[in-house]
């Protein structure tokens, strides 16, 4: 289901479920939304390839996403039991489970490339689309570089042992090369973006805009209205 929906529809569902979990009276509201969110994680459109779950022999792809949602939400239930009574634990636990399951499903179902194209097609500024895509691409690259710096410094004798002062000095020795090299590249990136036409105010041609049927647009509006209606009903 998730893979064929328009990216904005996926975002709307993933935002509406946690909103309703908090707006609707606990624990029933949270139970319904958590159930819907967990069922979504079992849908065929939720691909484990986009969820950082690793391989799980014997688990069907949908179950892998479900498992990720459950394992991410589980610690919250334990900590809630530690701090609160049972009714409060259930009320908050169901809300958190809804949030976690919705977003885990979203990450599994949403292709970043499709989202970027949807944003461009909808007339969003190319700069905003760039920020989202470039940040998603930059994080793993910088993480890999950070790991290489750590390994290189370890070869030079860096040790996690010692007092706090020694560890803070070691932290500086690891962090400074990473940050300075990344900042140095900002200039080159700016030059490259400029030369390839990413300037403020451009009207970029969408390359492969995902189809956005009227029924999905209506569904998104309906979700928004449902949340507003629930909010009004809750407080009036």
């Amino acid at each position: 289901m998730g893979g064929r929906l328009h990216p904005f529809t996926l975002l709307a569902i993933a935002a509406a479920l946690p909103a309703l979990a908090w707006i609707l009276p606990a624990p029933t509201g949270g139970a319904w939304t958590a159930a819907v969110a967990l069922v979504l994680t079992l849908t065929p459109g939720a691909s484990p390839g986009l969820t950082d779950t690793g391989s799980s022999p014997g688990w069907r792809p949908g179950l892998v996403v479900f498992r990720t949602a459950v394992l991410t939400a589980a610690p919250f239930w334990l900590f809630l039991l530690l701090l609160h009574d049972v009714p409060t634990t259930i009320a908050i636990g169901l809300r958190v489970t809804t949030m976690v399951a919705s977003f885990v499903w979203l990450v599994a179902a949403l292709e970043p490339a499709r989202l970027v194209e949807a944003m461009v097609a909808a007339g969003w500024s190319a700069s905003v689309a760039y920020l989202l895509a470039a940040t998603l691409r930059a994080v793993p690259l910088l993480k890999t570089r950070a790991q290489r710096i750590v390994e290189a410094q370890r070869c030079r004798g860096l040790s996690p042992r010692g007092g706090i002062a020694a560890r803070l000095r070691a932290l500086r020795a690891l962090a400074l090369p990473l940050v300075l090299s990344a900042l140095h590249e900002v200039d080159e990136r700016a030059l490259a973006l400029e030369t390839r036409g990413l300037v403020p105010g451009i009207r970029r041609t969408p390359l492969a805009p995902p189809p956005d049927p009227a029924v999905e647009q209506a569904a998104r509006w309906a979700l928004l209205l449902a949340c507003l209606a629930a909010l009004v009903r809750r407080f009036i």
Partner: protein
Amino acid sequence: MRSLTLDHASFWYPATESPALRDVTLDVAQGEVVALVGALGAGASTLLLVAADLAPRVTGGRLAGAVARRDRSGIVLPTPWTQSSGMAFTVWDEVAFGPANLGWPTHEIARQVDRALERLELVPLASRDPATLSGGELQRVIIAAILAMDPGLVLFDEPAAELDAEGARTLWRLIRLLAREGKAVLLATSALDALPDVADRVVWLEDGAVRAVGTPDLLAEVAVCDAGLGTSVATVWRASGLPEPYPLTVAHAVQRWQ
């Protein structure tokens, strides 16, 4: 017809007192390949940034003198991983990034992208994620990305740095082809041995100023070889104590020897 003209151009980077370019006068015609050679810090990269209208507009700093550009320019910088758009998840999309930003219709984007991919022998990699490519492959993608924007003035800063020998040969052939198509090409490179076949003119930069301009034969002149900027053949000839004039290429050396 001149594509680029620099007239007594000088440039200072922000917070620096000495200029990175001093009183440079240079022009590049359509259909011409001009090569910039010089030691590290000679100002070749800065000259390319000025030519591309990126200095001082993006870099900051101060420009004195006049720069006139007739055509849209595209510049290929030395490090491919900082030039990727960050917005593309396939090679095809990466190459299409620039044309899409120009607001071209999709059929024109597709035509330019497919043509650029073919020229750089990248068609088998079209659906690959750019983040998974080697440095050489990514550099070819970036070159294709610039060419897909159909610039009239193409600027290269050490374009062969990440390429293997075969990739470099493909690149030099492509540069000559671009000139035959009427594009103006300005190229900074330390691959001096390629220049006799690639460049129409060579500009020797030293300390931000133009020291000499000439045909590729310049790379066999005594002063240039003394500065460590001669071709390999000229350098070896000189180091062997053989008499001037130094040969530029193997063919010249064979002729001299005979």
